[in-house]
């Protein structure tokens, strides 16, 4: 009996010492291999145009969630209606993981330009979260294309007509929602609450 205790004690302590001196913390590092992440990053399929996002917004498409990675202050000034504000500095907050790390809906990141959105995209993808996308050009592009574009030309094709109608609708919603007084705005945004963890377990 005592032999067994010494044997298992040595085994456990030995493994414990190896654990304590592991050279890096794999649980907090990227899951993907560098080459996998690079080849995903090079793909053009990770982008949605602002027109596509405008359509998602108009249709209140439930297969996507639009994620604003700017600061809460900037988000409050104006944002794409229906988007969730996950400031870039808060990206690793455990409370957001159920929202970001899920297979059901696509994550579409946007910032003012492509920069912060690209950081966020690379981190989310590197961590192994599925279905990440970037709204190409960010809010700057959104303003130029959706908010400020005017049709100039002689004839309008049906396809162009449809596109301009989408933009017009998106522009109207964007202006309306963002013009609301602050109190109403907050209530509207808080409707998007944090999700419960998707993981099962325990005795529940």
């Amino acid at each position, binding site marked *: *009996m*005592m032999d067994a*205790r010494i044997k*298992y*004690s040595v085994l*456990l*302590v030995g*493994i*414990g*010492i190896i*654990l*304590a001196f*592991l050279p890096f*913390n*794999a*649980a907090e590092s990227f*899951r993907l291999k560098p080459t996998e992440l690079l080849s995903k990053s090079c793909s053009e399929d990770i982008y949605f145009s602002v027109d596509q996002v405008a359509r998602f917004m108009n249709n209140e498409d439930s297969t996507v969630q639009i994620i604003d990675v700017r600061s809460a202050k900037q988000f409050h000034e104006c944002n794409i209606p229906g988007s969730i504000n996950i400031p870039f500095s808060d990206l690793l907050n*455990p*409370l957001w*993981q159920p929202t970001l*790390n899920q297979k059901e809906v696509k994550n579409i990141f946007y910032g003012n330009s492509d920069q912060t959105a690209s950081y966020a995209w690379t981190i989310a993808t590197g*961590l*192994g979260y599925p279905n990440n996308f970037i709204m190409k050009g960010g809010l700057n592009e959104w303003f130029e294309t959706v908010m400020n574009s005017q049709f100039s030309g002689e004839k309008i094709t049906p396809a162009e007509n449809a596109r301009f109608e989408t933009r017009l609708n998106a522009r109207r919603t964007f202006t309306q929602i963002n013009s609301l007084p602050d109190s109403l705005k907050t209530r509207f945004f808080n409707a998007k609450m944090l999700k419960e*963890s998707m*993981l*099962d*377990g*325990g005795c529940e």
Partner: protein
Amino acid sequence: MGPLTILSEFPEWINLLIAFCIGIGFGFALEQAGFSSSRKLAGMFYGYDTTVLKVFFTAAIVALAGSQLLSFFGLLNLKLVFVNPYYMNATIIGGIIMGAGFIMGGYCPGTGISALSIGKIDALIFLFGGMVGAFLFAETYPYIQTIAMENYKGPMRIEEWMGISPEIFTLILIIAAVALFWLAEHAEKKFSRTEITTDL
């Protein structure tokens, strides 16, 4: 790369089959450890048999260290493994009630099922009582809902709470367990009750 059933698109029945197989292993290990005997379990609290402590800590440490090693080798994503949510008040009050039930009944639910499987009639009654307990909980749920929900801390992990790395904490836990094993074997000699232990 694990957890397999979360990361791969397996049909639901495979997950349930896995559950059944895990259950077989669980029941087998509990019975082999001697957890199917209430007097052996109760020995933990009177010092004459400390099997519970040895099995419990060894098992927790093996799973803990094993999962950290699997994570290090890129085989398991620890972020996708369920972490029990911490409702402070409910956990403490529930734990105290469970402790009382443990010493009265001589089993916990897992060991009770294991004892039932080899024909212990007291375990059958214990589990029947357990069903009554679950029924009572469901019926009284509206009255205790506030206690059950109070002080919710989320799925908090010990390293966030203490601010040290999980691997270092594991080493501390292992050293504590080894010390407890030593203590336990001394206690077994001191509080020895041969009339019970030879009977088991």
